[in-house]
């Protein structure tokens, strides 16, 4: 082994702590810092893999009998740790869904990236981590000269991962999904027709961060307006406990791999009674450094025709 067992164990503990931050359901959002914890966990474990000569990922014919035994035992231990990891991830998701709640209008959403990245990091690295933990130091006379290769490999992996994430968030095109519910489920007024409109704009492939719009609008033949919003020129005021998910101007709450700053919604009704609604936010691939502008438009005329949505 090219790195001493003690050092391998210390690196594994550090990688484990970074990974546990991703696994923990609290805080609900890591505000764009999840990529740092992921890069730390992966790069440290890559150092451990290099430091244990990649025992966990080598083919059987490249290993002697003792090494095969150690490798297979490591996989068994990693397999046993897989189930509690999955249970903790599911429990975390349940907690997150209770905190965030679900709107009336159904909008298909992609899987949340943080638990998935957490599971992927575990699946890819757990056997190597166990090998690195268990493998004894080679006798002094058999030790190869100290090599910087594992460390360089770790740094290169971290850089490659961060580059992949940055391209995904900052360069690749965004995707928008919309859903409408007319009339608006359990919400109605006596003198107007109402509809609920939901849209999600996703940035980042694999490291998805979403702008999530939920808006209830009504129209009465004279004008269209937003319900339960201070932005509305003539808002219909309702107690929030009656209809908790009528209109919201926020992100999905899952801003783990990048964070939005300056999320705003604007509504205006033109002289013809057409409602122009916009939700926008600046996406910060690096926290607090706005880099990309995401925007969702919704235009509804006074008769309820949707002229633009997306």
């Amino acid at each position, binding site marked *: 082994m090219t790195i001493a067992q003690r050092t391998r164990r210390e690196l594994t503990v550090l990688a484990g702590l970074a990974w546990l931050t991703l696994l923990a359901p609290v805080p609900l959002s890591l505000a764009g810092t999840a990529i740092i914890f992921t890069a730390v966990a992966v790069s440290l474990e890559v150092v451990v893999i290099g430091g244990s000569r990649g025992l966990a990922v080598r083919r059987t014919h490249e290993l002697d009998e003792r090494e095969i035994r150690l*490798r*297979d035992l490591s*996989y068994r231990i990693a*397999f046993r740790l897989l189930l509690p990891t*999955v249970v903790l991830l599911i429990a975390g998701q349940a907690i997150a869904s209770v905190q965030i709640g679900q709107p009336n209008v159904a909008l*298909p*959403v992609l899987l949340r990236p943080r638990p998935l990245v957490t599971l992927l990091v575990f699946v890819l690295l757990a056997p190597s981590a166990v090998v690195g933990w268990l493998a004894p130091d080679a006798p002094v006379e058999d030790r190869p000269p100290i090599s910087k290769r594992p460390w360089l490999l770790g740094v290169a992996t971290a850089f490659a991962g961060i580059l992949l994430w940055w391209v995904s968030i900052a360069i690749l095109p965004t995707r928008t999904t919309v859903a409408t519910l007319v009339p608006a489920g359990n919400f109605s007024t006596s003198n107007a027709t109402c509809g609920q409109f939901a849209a999600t704009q996703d940035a980042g492939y694999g490291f998805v961060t979403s702008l999530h719009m939920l808006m209830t609008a009504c129209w009465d033949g004279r004008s269209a307006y937003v319900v339960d919003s201070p932005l509305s020129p003539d808002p219909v005021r309702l107690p929030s406990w009656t209809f908790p998910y009528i209109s919201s101007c926020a992100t999905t709450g899952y801003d783990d791999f990048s964070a939005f700053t300056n999320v705003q919604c604007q509504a205006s009704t033109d002289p013809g009674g057409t409602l122009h609604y916009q939700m926008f936010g600046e996406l910060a691939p690096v926290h607090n450094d706005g880099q990309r502008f995401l925007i969702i438009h919704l235009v509804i005329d006074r008769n309820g025709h949707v002229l633009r949505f997306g």
Partner: protein
Amino acid sequence: MSPVRRLATPETAYAGLLVLLVLLLALPALTRLPLLDAYLLFVIATVVVVRVAPATPGVWLGRRAARRAVVLLLLAACAVLMIPAPQVLSQSVLLVFVVIVLANVALGKATERVSTAPASAVDEREEALRNNAHRTAYLLLGVTVATLLVAGTLNLAIASWLTESGGVFVLFELTLFLPAMIIAWRSPDSIVTDAPVRRSLLSASAAVMTAASLVIPFLFTAVLVLAPAQVASSVKDRSGPAGSTCREFQATQTVGLVVEAQLPLHAVVCWDGARAYELWGLNRSDCRLWSNTFAIVEPVRCSDVTDANGTLRFAYEVDVRPSLLPMLRRRIAMHLSVSRTGQVLQFP
């Protein structure tokens, strides 16, 4: 090895935690149905007895072909749970679970539970066999899960499929049993000896309790389909509009035990000599107030008419199907007919 040591494995602890989680989720039903509590306790006791009883494959499960058939059956059942059609799943899910439980018990016997045995209970060859099986299982499961999850972050249809199908249950099943499946698949035919097989009391108890655990849900299903409905009803005088006389009708029809459905009716009907009419409780929305446990209820008829003689006739019919055997069904009907003079012609 002592029975307690046979139980003390990480897999048993994980399975126990999962059972606790499921019980916690099912708490509302458990507090309502004491018979269901008793059955679940019996199932847990059965699992413990099966787990501590020595497992031997016997002649039949000693054959490689039979073991492979069990593995294929388990994989097929998991595939059914992954069908992206909620209505197919909800109608056959309990039957699939029964198949999975049976196949898991057979798998344990076929492999002598080598994959989860404590280290002190296996020899060097078995240790190498199970470690290698875990490696294969890890690679198979890891590649599959990683591929699906990455696809789920990129594609909406795959994301919906993963969240709406029984993916989580399949993941639990494979995480607990995939190494055993691989051992069962790889192991050669057992050497069959002519020596008589001696069955211990524990083994016999395990067999009987397993059979009982599996038969009891079918008995509950039979009760739902065959046993007469239990009816409770009451009629009370009520005040109503001027010139009318009113009565409050309350009835409940219950079919089944544990696997059960309940149909309520609660209405006030008035009459004034010219006609009988509903004050409240006989609307379409009142035909959707049933409750059901491990049963599927489908409304068939909900009608409220006043005929030429002024008689009010309300009929509310549903088909009830047990979730375990959804091809069976029975019809329950609730009727209320009141003449214009207040004579109750039919109730319930």
